[in-house]
């Protein structure tokens, strides 16, 4: 079968980039990686990309096809050729390009290390092996599937605007340890993750969930970290304060109290700096009357529901004890 693709070439020696088109023959079952191999072997040996396992396990061959991050070894090419599409293959985003399709993964690994991707145990080793219950493993199974390919990081919209954002891969890995029943560094981890460039930098664009080739769903992992922070009452970050307004609004009247969002998220002093902006909104009729908030009917139901659920939520202490019981002995 004939495959045509365009590859974004980049030569670091000359700092020049160009788009180069290749047409090669490959079997109908060829993946993007197979086609790249044919290009390299038969047309131009200087085309540069990473690869290793060829079976979506090693995480080496992350790259973009028509702007979307994929694992080259997991991407069949026949459907595109049948449609007559000529895909543009380019390096992953949010990481510096070294040559052609190869990006510098150092910033990726630095963020990975920053979340301490290892188990922190007590100083005293356990007398027996740690036994982890199936349900405890299930809690972190999705995050444990990450192969560190970088496809999620490539597309992260928040990281484009804040390159220091820890990002979906590192945060998913952090959740894998925060959720691990054996870990003894949970509180400290959560404190660090709930600071600048952490959990609350995520803008919920869901590109990471969409792109992850292993079903890790990093955005969901970030949401779990947010929920864990709330359980630990770590709610000093502006992002957490913002979420608190939503929670209290529904409890009190069902609907969001928009006028409380600014002062309660960024504090009274920050709110003063936003007064000209707020007046502009008010002139257009966009500031609801704070003295007469929009309320849902029958909201007493929601209050009862909240109280019931709060009574059901195991306290952090109970969870910690249960975790130790389940994992220790």
């Amino acid at each position: 079968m004939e495959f045509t693709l365009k590859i974004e070439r980049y030569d670091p020696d000359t700092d020049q980039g160009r788009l180069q088109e290749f047409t090669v023959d490959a079997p109908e079952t060829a993946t993007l990686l197979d086609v790249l191999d044919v290009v390299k072997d038969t047309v131009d040996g200087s085309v540069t990309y990473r690869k290793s396992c060829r079976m979506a396990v090693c995480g080496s061959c992350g790259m973009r096809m028509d702007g979307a991050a994929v694992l080259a070894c997991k991407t069949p090419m026949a459907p595109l050729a049948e449609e007559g599409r000529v895909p543009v293959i380019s390096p992953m985003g949010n990481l510096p390009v070294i040559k052609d399709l190869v990006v510098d993964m150092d910033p990726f690994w630095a963020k990975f290390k920053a979340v301490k991707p290892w188990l922190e145990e007590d100083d005293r080793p356990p007398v027996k092996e740690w036994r982890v219950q199936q349900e405890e493993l299930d809690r972190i199974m999705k995050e444990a599937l990450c192969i560190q390919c970088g496809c999620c990081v490539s597309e992260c919209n928040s990281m484009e605007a804040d390159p220091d954002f820890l990002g979906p891969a590192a945060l998913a890995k952090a959740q894998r340890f925060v959720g691990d029943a054996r870990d003894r560094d949970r509180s400290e981890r959560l404190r660090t993750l709930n600071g600048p460039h952490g959990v609350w930098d995520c803008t919920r664009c869901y590109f990471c969930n969409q792109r992850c080739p292993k079903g890790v769903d990093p955005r969901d992992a970030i949401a779990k970290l947010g929920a864990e922070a709330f359980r630990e009452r770590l709610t000093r970050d502006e992002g957490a304060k913002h979420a608190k307004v939503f929670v209290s609004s529904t409890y009190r009247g069902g609907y969001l109290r928009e006028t409380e969002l600014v002062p309660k998220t960024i504090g009274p002093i920050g709110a003063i700096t936003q007064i000209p902006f707020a007046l502009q909104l008010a002139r257009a009729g966009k500031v609801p009357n704070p003295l007469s908030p929009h309320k849902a009917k029958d909201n007493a139901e929601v209050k009862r529901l909240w109280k019931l659920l709060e009574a059901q939520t195991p306290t952090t202490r109970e969870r910690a004890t249960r975790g130790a019981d389940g994992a220790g002995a």
Partner: protein
Amino acid sequence: MKDRYAYYPGCLASLSQKELDSSSRAIMGKLGVELVEMPSVTCCGAGDIHEAKPDYYLHISARILGQAERSGCDTILTICNVCTLNLRQANERLRENPEELARVNDNLQQTGIGTYQGGVDVRHLLWEVSTGDGYERFKEIAVRSLEGLKVAPFYGCQILRPAKLLGFEDPDRPESLERLITACGAEPVDYPAKVKCCGFPIVLAREDVALGELVQPLSQATEAGADVMVTPCPLCHLSLDAWQAKAENTAGEEFNLPILHLAQLLGAAAGIEESTLKFRRHITRLSDDVKEKLKLPSVVSAD
């Protein structure tokens, strides 16, 4: 398209973005659709409650879904991306996990709230009007061709991704907004950031990061020659409209790009009056040229 929907405007369209509510009601009325009110529903939980208190989010969503079910409708009509994703996410979890549904229903019952049997679908107005019977009906009522108006579609995130929960169209190559823009007689303008994030969820907590995201669609759409931008999400709208001046400061360039709610664009093409569409509630004002291209009756009659 159904003849009856349980109508769920959500928080923003009930509060700061009331023009979206009035426009949506008007356009659905013109399409011959009955919108059934649900006066006891709350906020869907948005990303915020979903993240902070996931179980509470699941229960308030179940309460909303249950109310829709008892209203005799089999579908909730949403007009917000965030409501769409959050309600669909809760709905899938409840429908796919009988044990979870039973646990949630038990809690609802204990607090005197009606239960949810799993019989409701959640669909965004965009989906209902851009395909099938809804699309055919819309073409019939789109009597005012907005010829000459260049419209940049901005989808927003949570109507596209994650596709496994939304699944209406290809999240990387969506075309529903383009189809409707064309049906209005206007011209869709293409630009890469139409599927990216507006930054709204973190615009208060991380304004610099959010503005860095917001600049992309505004800048690219302006560059591509758009007269206006249209979005199916009131959060994206607020970000693109109200924060536009701040994004201009960040970018060091002027956009002056009016942002329309999808229902407003459809409404203009269907000849719904300005007093219902309420463009005056926008921060980034419509220029006279845009008003003329939108064929707003006030401008037409002035001619």
